[in-house]
């Protein structure tokens, strides 16, 4: 177990190093450079700026400085937002994204497990048919369409009621969080419902459930202790990819709902070619996702003793 954990961590570090290097190479391949924008800059100012950001040094030296700074956890200063350190941007805005993402994943997991179990219990009856139809819809509609529809519904509901039930955009109160996190979790919830349903159907016909039933255990106990607990296990395996889906889905939801999360800053930085912010947030997101997947795998091995980690 320890050896496996160490091996995965080393692999993770190598992956993150590759991400950082690829980001550096990508940034240096971009046509144009961060200092050329619409304002004309005199050669002297340009030279000073290049010195300030270290752009006048040879590429290899820039790479070493960049890697050295990154090891110290310093991502540099933003090009477009003057005097703002990338570390500060991440520190201020990642918590917002994290709250949104955690709410979304809790919502998706609870909803997915509940609906999935329900459809399996009512297999081929009306609730199953209705929920599975919604699930197919949930898998087929892109997150930005959900976000737009969620916002549109909110506007209409508020107009219908004559007062603001929930704010349409922005961030700050609990009311701001509800609809964006629901919208963000929908796709994952649909996916988890489907997975939970097939896993539940497998469990329902298993021997130990039949044994439990023949022993005369109460149905609720069988459902909770024997069926649900065992059926939930495969759901944990896809939590890693789900976290990735919700993280990137967050870019869009934050954009549509004007939420000051890191995703929105990342997309903005990409559009404005803010080099240091792109590099910093990409490496940060990359490391976050890589280690999340490792964490989920370790948790799975811990929860399900049948899985041999090696």
């Amino acid at each position, binding site marked *: 177990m320890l050896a496996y954990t160490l091996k995965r961590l080393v692999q993770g570090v190598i992956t993150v190093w590759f*991400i950082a290097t*690829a980001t550096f190479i990508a940034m240096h391949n971009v046509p144009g450079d961060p200092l050329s924008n619409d304002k004309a800059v005199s050669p002297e100012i340009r030279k000073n700026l290049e010195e300030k950001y270290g752009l006048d040094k040879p590429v290899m030296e820039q790479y070493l400085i960049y890697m050295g700074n990154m090891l110290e956890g310093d991502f540099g200063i933003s090009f477009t937002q003057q005097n703002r350190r990338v570390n500060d941007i991440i520190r201020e805005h990642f918590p917002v994204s994290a709250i949104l993402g955690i709410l979304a994943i809790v919502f998706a997991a609870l909803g997915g497990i509940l609906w999935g179990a329900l459809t399996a219990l009512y297999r081929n009856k009306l609730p199953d048919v209705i929920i599975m139809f919604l699930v197919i819809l949930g898998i087929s509609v892109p997150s930005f369409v959900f976000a737009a529809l969620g916002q549109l519904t909110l506007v209409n509901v508020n107009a219908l009621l004559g007062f603001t039930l929930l704010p349409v955009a922005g961030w700050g109160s609990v009311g701001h969080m509800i609809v964006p996190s629901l919208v963000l979790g929908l796709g994952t919830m649909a996916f988890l419902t489907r997975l939970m349903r097939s896993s539940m159907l497998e469990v329902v016909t298993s021997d130990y459930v039949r044994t439990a039933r023949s022993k005369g255990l109460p149905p609720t106990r069988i459902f909770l202790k024997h069926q649900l607990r065992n059926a939930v296990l495969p759901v944990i395996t896809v939590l890693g990819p789900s976290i990735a889906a919700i993280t990137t889905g967050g870019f869009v939801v934050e954009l549509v709902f004007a939420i000051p999360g890191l995703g929105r800053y990342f997309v903005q930085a990409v559009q404005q070619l803010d080099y240091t912010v792109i590099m910093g947030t990409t490496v940060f997101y990359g490391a976050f996702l890589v280690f999340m997947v490792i964490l989920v795998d370790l948790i799975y091995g811990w929860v399900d003793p049948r899985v041999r980690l090696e």
Partner: protein
Amino acid sequence: MTEASFNVSDFEPVSGAREVQRISRPSLSYWQDAWIRLKANRRALISLYIVIGLLSFTLLGPLLWTVDPAAQDLDQVSQPPGADRGATIVGPFQPWEGATANAQVSGQEGAPAEIRLAEPATTQAVRLLWDPVLDAAGYRVYRNVFPAEEGRALGLPLAEILSPDRVSFEDRLDLEARTYYYSVVALDPIGEEFPDFTSLPVKVIRVITAEQAVERGLAKPGALKPGDQVQLKLHPFGTDYLGRDLLARLMFGAQVSLFIGIVAPMLFVLAGILFGSTAGFLGGRTDQAMMRFADFVVALPFLLFMILFKIAFGIGPGESGILPMLLALVLLSWPATARLVRGQILQIRQEGYISASQLLGAKTYYLVLRHMIPNTMGVILVTLTFAVPSAIFTEAFLSFIGMGVAPPIPSWGSMCNEGIKTMLSHPHELIFPAVFISITVLAFNLLGDGLRDALDARMRSTE
């Protein structure tokens, strides 16, 4: 004990023997069987028809509906489908003098007593006149699309008139055929607004000049005179915020979205087959190394790398950005198929029929062509079908955040991105591309389910 004796006749076949076993139905090949199963699955069959319909919409549509997707119809901007297309012919635009009045002689206090139209309001010009206000040093004219009375919702300030005598204004700013609410507020000498304002609802009718009608191919020269009615160009799905035909844009957007959605999976599945079958066939240390590499690529955060790739091979002027996206998709997506194919190959190598074939002297290429590939084809086809919706999703996501196909080339994702900005006032600009993405993804998902049930006995779902 008697010795057994046999005659020749004992070795003749028994006549009228009962047939113990007989193949009662025609024997079916794998693909015939799969096709019968697929035909029995109504959802999959409908999805197949939808996919065929989408492909013909994309490929044949532009031949039937030959409107240029980049052409702007400025008479009909952001029109929903089925909107009124009538327009009245008017003469060419004539300059207008306006009107003046002496406020100190005829003015009244507070706000203008009344706003009037100097002539019927048209999309060519709205000409307003109002009664002067006592002590006013000037006026400010506002326009809104909602009534202004509630909460002083004056709307867009159109003009500031810094002369007490001028009591007229001509509005020619992006007029559409709808009702506007004009408001006029008097200004004091330091430019502060008076507290009161006067408002006038104006219903604007759509007009074009005879020359414009000829220019746009709506009529022959000389055929129209002012006062005639013409029908503007038909846009079955309406127009977008620049007056471009949505149906034509949806067709061309489909070409981009479906091209990426179908070609990219084909390429990366092919790459995956080559990689996976090589690894599975060679086995040993080479296999280990190749699969370690595949694991490494899988661990990379997919969309982050798509965005990085996009930035690195950024779009120069005149480029569409389709090729970099295609390349990035192929480079990042092949490992899933490679793993699958390798697993299949390893499994098939163990099968008895492979050993039998080898014993009978079959060469490697025969084994691969006759046994390995046909037996993995089903799984590969299912993977391919499921890869299409995810590629379409990726394209739509990237185009939505502005990292996909470069304008003016439309894709469904970038159309959604444009549509979301005018979602509240013109929802059709978002709804049409969103519905097309959803239906396409839905159809491929259901078709994939059907194909999986039909082709792969082991993956058959528990329904």
